[in-house]
């Protein structure tokens, strides 16, 4: 079979067996839902409710603030009990709407008109997707409607659908493809129609044969959709790696995928688009993989957005005594959580609980210049050199050496025999550069 992959990358233990065979279940509504207004890339939503208001499931609590923004909707019926600053999974505090969930509500959304997508213009589809608050469900939470209307200067020829899910432990996309392949195809149909492309490729890593089979079985015969089995390697699901694996073309540094004529969308986001044009329901719940050896009962769950992490962990029968660290996202790119009051967001792909055995803090040794990080870096940077620069705070030089191309995939940290936390250094350096830039602008 032909090789569909990319150069470099790493092979971390997959650990997907914990949840890959578990069907998606629905989690019961928690007592309180907390909805931060900042859940997506771009401007936070604008508050549109007051304390004491009653909201039905699917009612907006925050409205889109401009084009690079999406609204936030109530994920359960209830009463707005407070609007305050509340812990955000990224460690900061963000303006948050608290909903006291009505225990006896039937949790049916208000009857709404479902737009028939065939008759809509591009602008109307974009508007409908924005109004539904759909963002990329792969983790970055980039507003989906922006991808539906690429700049006019570029001709899009292929829609690439990301079902790689290369991150260890996570299986939410996998289960979506196995259980809801029709939704993925329906979302794909709407996107192809809107983008005006005739060709779509769904990239799935070869370690998910059941997902590939399910997508093949339900593949619409009237559309040119290819299901492409990809080499199992991390970070296969990174946008630029996926484009390279599917088309063989490299996206230039600092440019968007649309410059090479492709748009990439996550399978979960397609399922969310399908939901919008199927039932009219906005993005108010998502599939989250709750897993890890530190968790009593791993599961793939449909979780209302805004469920507190502690409620989620409690529903999975809590953590084991040797649990040590809770990670929001996967173990490679995810971020440790410092406060379990923080909620599940639209971009939360999974929650991984690691045991103390797995999070040993190893002693950091000096760089021995072995070059393994160079062989691992999927964007061909020199992490060893960048790490040296980061330690002496020469951030501008790091920027000159293409720090901006680093997507913090963690491959360099993973292979480093000296245990140097390169990825963390780069993350801190990026933050420092941003601080310098904003200070310079002010």
């Amino acid at each position, binding site marked *: 079979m032909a090789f569909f992959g990319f150069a470099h990358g790493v092979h971390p233990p997959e650990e997907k067996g914990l949840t890959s065979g578990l069907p998606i279940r629905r989690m019961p509504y928690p007592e309180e839902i907390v909805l931060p207004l900042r859940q997506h890339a771009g401007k936070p939503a604008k508050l549109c409710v007051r304390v004491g208001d009653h909201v039905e499931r699917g009612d907006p609590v925050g409205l889109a603030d401009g084009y690079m923004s999406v609204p936030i909707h109530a994920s359960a019926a209830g009463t707005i009990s407070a609007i*305050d*600053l509340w*812990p955000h*999974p*990224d*460690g*900061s*505090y963000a303006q948050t709407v608290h909903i006291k969930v009505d225990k006896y509500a039937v949790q049916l959304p208000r009857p709404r008109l479902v737009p028939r997508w065939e008759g809509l213009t591009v602008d109307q589809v974009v508007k409908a997707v924005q109004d539904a608050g759909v963002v990329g469900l792969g983790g970055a939470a980039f507003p989906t409607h922006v991808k539906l209307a690429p700049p006019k200067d570029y001709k899009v020829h292929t829609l690439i659908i990301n079902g790689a899910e290369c991150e260890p432990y996570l299986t939410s996309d996998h289960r979506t493809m196995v259980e809801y392949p029709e939704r993925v195809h329906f979302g794909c149909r709407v996107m192809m129609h809107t983008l005006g492309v005739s060709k779509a490729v769904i990239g799935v890593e070869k370690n998910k044969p059941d997902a590939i089979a399910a997508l093949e079985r339900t593949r619409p015969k009237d559309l040119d959709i290819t299901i492409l089995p990809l080499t199992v390697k991390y970070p296969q699901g990174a946008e630029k790696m996926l484009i390279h694996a599917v088309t063989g073309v490299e996206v230039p540094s600092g440019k968007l995928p649309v410059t090479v004529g492709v748009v990439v969308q996550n399978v979960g986001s397609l399922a969310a688009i399908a939901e919008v044009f199927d039932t009219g329901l906005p993005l108010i719940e998502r599939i989250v993989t709750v897993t890890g050896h530190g968790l009593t009962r791993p599961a793939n769950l449909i979780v209302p957005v805004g469920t507190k992490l502690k409620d989620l962990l409690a529903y999975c029968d809590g953590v084991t005594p040797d649990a040590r660290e809770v990670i929001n996202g996967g173990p490679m790119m995810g*971020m*440790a*959580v*410092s*406060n379990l009051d923080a909620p599940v967001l639209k971009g939360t792909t999974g929650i991984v609980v690691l045991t103390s055995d797995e*999070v040993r*803090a190893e002693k*950091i040794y000096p760089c021995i210049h072995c070059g393994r990080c160079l062989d691992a870096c999927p964007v061909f940077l020199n992490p060893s050199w960048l790490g040296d620069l980061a330690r002496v705070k020469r951030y501008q030089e790091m920027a000159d050496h293409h720090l901006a191309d680093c997507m913090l995939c963690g491959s360099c940290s993973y292979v480093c025999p000296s245990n140097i*936390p390169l990825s*963390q*250094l780069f*993350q*801190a350096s990026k*933050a*420092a550069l941003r*601080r310098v830039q904003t*200070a310079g602008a002010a």
Partner: protein
Amino acid sequence: MIILQAVLILGGTALVFAIFIAAANKKLKVWEDPRIDVVSAMLPNANCGACGLPGCRAFAEKAVAGGIQVSKCTVSNAERIGEIAHFLGVDAGQAVKVVARLQCAGGSNVAVQRAEYRGLGTCEAAAAVAGGGKGCAWGCLGLADCERACTFGAITMNPEGLPVVDVEKCTACNDCVVACPKDLFVLQQLDHQLLVQCKNLVQGDVVLEQCTVACTTCGKCVLDAAPGLISVASGVAVIDYSKIAEAEESAVERCPTNAIVWLRGAQFARQPALSSAEAA
């Protein structure tokens, strides 16, 4: 004979270049005020940038040209500044002592540590991982990035993990302000004694679950101070330093958490001493 040839060729080449260099020196010479060198030698040459110029040489050039008051060099002492001013025959100007102040008093004894951070021991790296594990997302992480950044050795970490600024040594060079990923340092005049040592924007008494010296926005200081001096905006007390002349110590007396303080010299240092004095 060959030796002579070599000497002549090399010597001739040297002569040609010497004439060229001499001509260039005449033609391209840039006259520089000789006082710049003298003033430059009298400056501390720490090149700290506190004056806002890219180094001591640049400061000397500007001082000689009369573009900046000599007292703007905050690193030098008054005696030295006087000498430079006397040498240049200008008024030294009024030097206002400015020092770095930390807008956080949440040491490990009073602030909740919600998660354990293990990793690179710098504030910058810790702040990149979920804010660093401290209960208060705005508070000092205590990993001493500022101490390492300080060129003058003015910052030392106290046992509670807070940086204490030595007001004698601090030159207000701004390095700690840049180094702190939580933006907790401000440069403030030493005679401005009123300071809010908290940046936590959570309102009300729930903030005490994070830190017992946090501002609860109770507003007592606003009532006790001169009108308009202190206001409570977006979750924390804010001092309007344009009205600082009206400030009195009585404003901080009713603060239930000591989030707003009346400074005498260094921060934090006097707090234990005060309580024992009060007890006596």
